[in-house]
C-alpha cells in the first residue's frame, strides 16, 4: 500500500507495537532510515519532502515515540510540508485505559496537523492511507498523522488496490483561480508605477519559480522573497531585492513602504515579514494570491484576493499578458528601478572582516566554494539569518529551513533527509553551536546510512540571536545565553566516526571549508567566530518594517 503511494524511503524508530510492521517492511522495497530520536525522523522527512517534491513519511511507535514527533510535525505544519506520520498505538481494546505507552496522539496533534486519523478497523486502513497522502500533497500541503493500533496493524483485510483519484465530499481545494480576478490583477499591474512582487514558499511548493520569473521580467517588476521563498526568484537577477522582513535587505523593506501595488504570491504576511501591520505597504493596493483562503485578509487588508495554486495562477497571468502591449514598460519602470538601485547603493548587506572570523565571511566563502550550488539547511538563530543573507540562491528547493516555527535542532536531521532525496548533491547544514546540540545525535544516523552531510558550525559560544536581543533591548544583560560548557565539536565528530575540523583564524576558513566539503562521509566544521556579532539590518519586533536598525 505504501509502495503504491510512491513511498521509497521511511524515517523511523521501532517499538513494541511496531515490531510486526517492521518485520513486514523488511520484506518490501522500502528503504528505512533508522534515526536516533523521533524528532529527527520528522525533520528528516521534512527535508526529504522539500528536496524530492514527494510526501515525506515517518514511522514511530506509540506513547513516547509519538510525542517525540510533535515539534517536527508542528514545524512541517507551519511550513506547509507534505508529510504522512504513522504512529503505532496500543490495541483498540486498550485505548482509553491509560495502557502502557498509550497517549492520545490524535488529540495532541489535532491543532498542528492538516488532518489526522485513528484507524479502528483494518478494512478502513487502505482508504485512510490513500486519503492521507492525497490530503498531505494537495491544496496547501501539510502533515497528516495516522494512528495505527497494534491489532489493526496485525489484522488482515481483503486488500483491493483502490483505483482512480481520491474523491472527498468535504475536501476540494481551489486550484484554478477566478479569471475575472486575474483580469483585474493585470489591469492594476499595467497601471502601476511602483509595483512590487513578494514571493513566498507557495511558489516553491507549487513549482512556480519559472512562471514567476517570466512574469516579473515581462513587466519589469522587482521581486522580494520571504525566508521560505528564497530561491523562488533568482537572487542574482537585477530585479531581485533579496529577502524581506525583520532581517531583510534595506531595499526590500524600503520598497514596501513606497510601492503602489504589492502582489503577494504564496505568502501569508507573517508578522516577521510585515512588522507593524497597519504601516505595512500603506501606500499600496495589495493583491494576494494563495491556495489557502484563510491566509488572505488574515493579517493585512487585501484589495484583490485570488484563491488558487500559485503556478496555475502565474501561468494564467502570463497567458493574459500576451494580449497586452508591453513596449512602454521599460521606460515607465525606469524611475522606480532607479530609486531601488539607490537604496541598494546606500545600504548593502555588509560586514568587516577583522582578525577574528566573521560568521558572514564563512557563509560567503561557503557560497563561493560551492558555487552557490549546495543544498543548504539551517538551524535557527543568527546562523539561519546569515545563511539566508549571504548564500545566493538562484534556484528553488535549495534552502531548507524551519521558517514558521523556528525549531532549533532542525538543520542536521533535515540535511539528512535532503541527502536521501538527493544522494549526489552536496548538502550543508549551517548551524549554531546551541542548535546543533539539540539534535546532534543524528550524526549517528548519517554515519549508519552513509549520508555524507556536512555541518558548518558558526560557533559564537552564545545563543546568539537571543543575546543580540539582550544587547539591543535589555542593556546587554546576557542572562542564560552563554554556552559556557561546550563539547569539543571536533572530538564529538570523531566520537561518531565522522570527520571533525576547526578554524580559529580567518586565513584558515577556506582551507577548512575545502577540506571538509571534499572529505568523504559526514563532517563537522567548527568555525570559532566573532562572539558578539549581530545580524543587520534588524527591524525591532512590532516596529514598521521600514524602520531598520542598520550597522
Amino acid at each position, binding site marked *: 500500500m505504501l509502495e503504491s503511494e510512491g513511498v521509497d524511503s521511511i524515517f523511523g524508530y521501532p517499538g513494541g507495537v511496531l515490531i510486526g510492521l517492521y518485520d513486514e517492511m523488511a520484506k518490501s522495497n522500502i528503504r528505512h532510515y533508522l534515526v536516533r530520536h523521533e524528532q529527527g525522523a520528522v525533520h528528516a522527512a521534512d527535508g526529504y519532502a522539500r528536496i524530492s517534491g514527494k510526501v515525506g513519511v515517518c514511522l514511530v511507535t506509540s506513547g513516547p515515540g509519538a510525542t517525540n514527533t510533535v515539534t517536527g510535525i508542528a514545524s512541517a505544519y507551519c511550513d506547509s510540508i507534505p508529510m504522512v506520520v504513522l504512529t503505532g498505538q496500543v490495541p483498540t481494546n486498550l485505548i482509553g485505559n491509560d495502557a502502557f505507552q498509550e497517549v492520545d496522539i*490524535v*488529540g495532541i496533534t*489535532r*491543532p498542528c496537523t*492538516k*488532518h489526522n486519523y*485513528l484507524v479502528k478497523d483494518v478494512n478502513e486502513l487502505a482508504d485512510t492511507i490513500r486519503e492521507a497522502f492525497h*490530503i498531505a500533497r494537495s491544496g496547501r500541503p501539510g502533515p497528516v498523522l495516522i494512528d495505527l493500533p497494534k491489532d489493526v496493524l496485525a489484522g488482515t483485510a481483503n486488500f483491493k488496490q483502490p483505483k482512480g483519484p481520491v474523491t*472527498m*465530499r*468535504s*475536501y476540494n481545494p481551489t486550484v484554478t483561480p477566478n479569471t475575472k480576478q486575474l483580469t483585474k490583477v493585470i489591469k492594476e499591474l499595467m497601471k502601476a508605477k511602483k509595483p512590487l512582487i513578494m514571493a513566498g514558499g507557495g511558489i516553491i511548493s507549487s513549482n512556480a519559480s519559472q512562471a514567476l520569473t517570466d512574469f516579473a521580467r515581462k513587466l519589469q517588476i522587482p521581486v522580494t522573497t520571504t525566508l521560505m521563498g528564497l530561491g523562488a526568484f533568482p537572487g542574482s537577477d537585477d530585479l531581485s531585492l533579496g529577502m524581506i522582513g525583520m532581517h531583510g535587505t534595506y531595499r526590500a523593506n524600503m520598497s514596501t513602504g513606497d510601492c503602489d501595488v504589492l502582489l503577494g504570491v504564496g505568502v501569508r504576511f507573517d508578522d516577521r515579514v510585515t512588522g507593524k501591520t497597519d504601516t505595512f505597504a500603506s501606500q499600496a493596493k495589495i493583491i494576494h494570491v494563495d491556495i*489557502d*483562503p*484563510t491566509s488572505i*485578509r*488574515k493579517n493585512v487588508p487585501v484589495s484583490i484576493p485570488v484563491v488558487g495554486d500559485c503556478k496555475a495562477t502565474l501561468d494564467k497571468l502570463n497567458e493574459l499578458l500576451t494580449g497586452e502591449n508591453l513596449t512602454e514598460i521599460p521606460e515607465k519602470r525606469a524611475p522606480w528601478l532607479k530609486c531601488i538601485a539607490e537604496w541598494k547603493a546606500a545600504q548593502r548587506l555588509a560586514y568587516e572582516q577583522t582578525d577574528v572570523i566573521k560568521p558572514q565571511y564563512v557563509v560567503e566563502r561557503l557560497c563561493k566554494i560551492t558555487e552557490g550550488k549546495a543544498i543548504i539547511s539551517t538551524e535557527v538563530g543568527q546562523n539561519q539569518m546569515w545563511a539566508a543573507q549571504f548564500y545566493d540562491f538562484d534556484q528553488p528547493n535549495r534552502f531548507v529551513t524551519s521558517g514558521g516555527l523556528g525549531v532549533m535542532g532542525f538543520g542536521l536531521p533535515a540535511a539528512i533527509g535532503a541527502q536521501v532525496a538527493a544522494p549526489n548533491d552536496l548538502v550543508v547544514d549551517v548551524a549554531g553551536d546551541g542548535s546543533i546540540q539539540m539534535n546532534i545525535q543524528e550524526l549517528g544516523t548519517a554515519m549508519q546510512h552513509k549520508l555524507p552531510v556536512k555541518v558548518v558550525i558558526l560557533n559564537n559560544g552564545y545563543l546568539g540571536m537571543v543575546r543580540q536581543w539582550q544587547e539591543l533591548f535589555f542593556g546587554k544583560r546576557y542572562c542564560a545565553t552563554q554556552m559556557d560548557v561546550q563539547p569539543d565539536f571536533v572530538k564529538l565528530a570523531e566520537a561518531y566516526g565522522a570527520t571533525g575540523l576547526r578554524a580559529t583564524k580567518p586565513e584558515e576558513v577556506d582551507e577548512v571549508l575545502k577540506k571538509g566539503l571534499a572529505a568523504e562521509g559526514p563532517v563537522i566544521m567548527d568555525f570559532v567566530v566573532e562572539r558578539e556579532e549581530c545580524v543587520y539590518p534588524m527591524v525591532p519586533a512590532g516596529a514598521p518594517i521600514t524602520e531598520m536598525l542598520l550597522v
Partner: protein
Amino acid sequence: MSEEQHVLSILVEDRPGVLSRIAGLFSGRGFNIASLCVANAASEGLSRITLVTQADPLVIEQIIKQLRKLINVVKVTDLAEGPAVYREMALVKVSAKPEFRAEILRIVDIFRCKVIDVSAEHYTVEVTGDQGKITALLDLLKPMGVKEIARTGVTALSREQRNGN
C-alpha cells in the same frame, strides 16, 4: 470595528473528533462560542452544528474560512446573509408556591408553552421560540423563583424562496 452576533450553520461529517476539531479551532484562535447545538442532519452520515459567535466582520470572515478548511466540514453558511428561521428550546424549573400557581399557568398559556413536570413545589416548563421570547418568559418567571434552566442554544435553518416571489 464593532462586534456582531452571527449564527453559523455548519454541516459536518459525523466522525469521531469532529466537534473537538471545531471547539479546538475556536479556543486555539481565541474565537468565541456563545452557544452550540449539534445533532444529526437530514442526510446519512452528516451532522448539523448551529453555532452562535460574536466578532467583528474580519474575524467572522476568518472563522468561516478556518471552519471550511477543516477536512470534515462539508459546508458553512452564515445565516446572517439571508432570511432564516431561528429557534431555541428551554426547560425552566420554577418554584410553584400555591399563591403563584395560577399566575404561572396563565403565563404558560400566553407564551404557548407547556408544563411537562409537576411536583409539590415546582413546575417544569418547556418553551420554544426565538431568543427574545425565551428571555421574555424568563423575565416573567424570575420573580416566582426560577430554580434551574436548561437551554439548547439556538438552532436554525435558512428560509427557502417562496413561490411567486
